[in-house]
């Protein structure tokens, strides 16, 4: 119904390579972009925007992890640690030399990329679950280092305060301003990832994921590209850490522990491995679902439980529902929310006919 491909003829290579070849898709993207870039900051109150801010931060991290796990097939449980590398690099730059955000942000990303590339070295020899353990080790080593090296962590508290970023001399203080700041980097990350995965590097990543021996035989330097994948993914993670620190006004190593890494892994798996839209959907799902289930329980839980028990029931039942919904969505569609969305789209493409 909505997706009319007929009548769309590609007459140039550029048209063939466009990210969104169909006019309807371009319009849809434009409407969504306008909604989130113009309408939301103008009409939403602080509370929904603060939730969106959390989602935006998660989107960048999930995109980065999806490049590594989804596109290159290298599993990593070290995202939290790479985020902390970025966060502390930026925090130290800001507090010691007064670096502006446009220096601190890429610097945090680059430092994380460097550390990520080093952590990625074992990936040449070990695969799958073994690599997961190697990255787990990295997570713990980096956590320990930050906790114990006071030159990095800035004291026994292991937290460094960062003033909110200033853009053109205006310090961003309100949720709304931070939202626009974060949105800029999310759009940048989205465009970068969309283009990365259809470039020479992205195709090499996919070849390695699908069959690394075959990839090597057709002339892809596996070592180089695996390290690229780790570096790029860690760069995203580092930037996520910096954005989060700017948002919170503090870099604190307890914000980047192993549970954060697992949350991000959950995002890319639920959203859909190897898809940009999946990363976004996964980030939304994992961030929003606990909030939504709690609001739901607070509203309707009173029907089933006495109010005295409710306070104890809500948080625990919320975890049960959260876990249950993750299993539900993965059973319905093992390939994630992205595939679910594609199924819906394909259904309506020929609707009301069956094919």
């Amino acid at each position, binding site marked *: 119904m909505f997706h009319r491909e007929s009548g769309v003829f590609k007459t140039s290579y550029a048209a063939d390579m466009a990210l969104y070849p169909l006019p309807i898709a371009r319009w849809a993207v434009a409407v969504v972009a306008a909604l989130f870039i113009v309408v939301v900051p103008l009409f939403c109150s602080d*509370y929904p925007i603060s939730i969106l801010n959390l989602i935006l931060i998660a989107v960048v991290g999930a995109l980065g992890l999806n490049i590594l796990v989804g596109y290159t097939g290298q599993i990593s449980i070290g995202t939290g640690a790479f985020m902390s590398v970025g966060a502390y690099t930026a925090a130290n730059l800001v507090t010691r030399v007064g670096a502006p955000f446009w220096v601190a942000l890429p610097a945090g990303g680059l430092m994380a990329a460097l550390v990520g590339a080093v952590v990625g070295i074992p990936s040449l020899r070990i695969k799958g679950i073994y690599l997961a353990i190697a990255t787990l080790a990295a997570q713990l080593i980096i956590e320990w280092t930050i906790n114990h090296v006071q030159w990095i962590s800035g004291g*026994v508290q292991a937290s460094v305060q960062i003033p909110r970023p200033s853009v053109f001399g205006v310090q961003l203080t309100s949720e709304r301003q931070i939202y626009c700041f974060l949105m800029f980097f999310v759009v940048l990350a989205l465009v970068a990832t969309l283009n990365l995965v259809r470039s020479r590097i992205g195709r090499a990543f996919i070849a390695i994921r699908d069959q690394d021996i075959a990839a090597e035989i057709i002339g892809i330097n596996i070592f180089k590209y695996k390290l690229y994948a780790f570096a790029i993914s860690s760069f995203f993670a580092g930037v996520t850490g910096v954005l989060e620190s700017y948002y919170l006004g503090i870099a*604190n190593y*307890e914000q980047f522990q192993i549970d954060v890494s697992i949350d991000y892994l959950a995002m890319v798996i639920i959203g859909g491995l190897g898809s940009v839209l999946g990363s976004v959907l996964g980030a939304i799902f994992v961030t929003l679902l606990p*909030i*939504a289930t*709690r*609001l*739901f329980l607070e509203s309707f839980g009173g029907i089933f439980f006495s109010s005295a028990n409710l306070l104890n029931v809500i*948080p625990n039942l919320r975890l049960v529902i959260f876990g249950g919904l993750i299993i539900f969505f993965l059973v319905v569609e093992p390939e994630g929310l992205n595939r679910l969305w594609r199924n819906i789209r394909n259904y309506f493409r020929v609707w009301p006919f069956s094919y």
Partner: protein
Amino acid sequence: MKKLARNMLTLAGVAAGLAYAGSAMADDKVLLLGVQCDRTGATQIVGTVLCPAMQDYFRLVNSKGGIDGWTVKGDEIDNGYKVPEAIEAYERQKQMGALIMTLYGTPQTVALNQRLEQDKMPTTSPGFGISAAADGTRFPYLFPGAATYWSQAAGAVSFAKDQLGGDLKGKKIAYVYYDNPAGKEPMPILETLQKQEGFDMRTFAVPPPGVELGAQIIDITQRYHPDFIIMHLFGRSPSVAIKGLKGAGFPLKKVLGLVWASAEADIIAAGGWATAEGYNTLQFAGAGDDYPVRAEIKAMYKKDGKDPPKEMDDTVVYNRGLLQAAIQVQGLTNALKISGGQKPTTEQVKAGMEQIKDFTLGGLVPPLQITATDHEGGGWVQIFGVHDGKFAKETEWFHAYRDVVENAVKTAE
């Protein structure tokens, strides 16, 4: 298609919940307090007792007619000891019109810290967060409301001094700590006091989760031979340490646990009251059952025809919850006086908090005196020892080495 319809239904349900929750708010003559809690995360052992205690206290206040006719309502949100959820909870309670909030957890407190000033939102963080927050001029909206780790360390050294005959010169003190920022936080104070009092100190880091302490126990008791041990451990590790020290034959009356190593649960997990006989605990709220407010809560439950809740079996963490809630209610009471009976603003609540003094709740709350500059209220602690199956008072409320602590607060970055 069926599958699709089902998915849509789920989404619609969630959306309806969101919409409904947004509309059910607003009531006059209600003072809203935002409470964050952790009933499901890493520190649930504390949260599942502390937060019900706060709710019980709010209920008690309301059953006695509220504050000058105003009902207090504690809106509780579980943050699961996670930072993003703490931010979401904070923003929601802010939107609901909370006048004062309870933050829960050290990383959550530091993460929210910058917002407090921006939103002018007074908050308390019971035994969490940063010791430097005692400085009301630098952290105007954060009220530790209980002895910080620095005051605890000072109190611990002072107690050790009394136990070791009034002089620490040449004595050996072991500091056993959980290897995380909170565990390391008391160290600057201990190091200063070490120089000042001339004792010898060695630190022993316990890597999380700290359930295997065999090597450290031998190191401490066989190699270092301390005269006194200060223990700053969390979770399961205090009980393991108590058991280990007992097994090594170290006299437990020469051991002092700081606030998170000092609940009933730790004693029971260590092998029971008989095993832990003599062990000393440092408290920032009175421990034990002998406080009128606890009797009042029990009477309140009895009037409803119910038994007191099982949370009340705990007298340490539960009493901390009461302290926490009581300080906030007291702050609101003062704020209502400032506002002249009108609904106070958050700024007036802050001012109300800064007027708290001579408020002890029958000895459960220390003789706090919170001022605009001292948000800690004096850093009072009390030592309770394990004697005959319960916590018995070893000292009265005291605070020690205030100059050292205040200096550290002033010079903290």
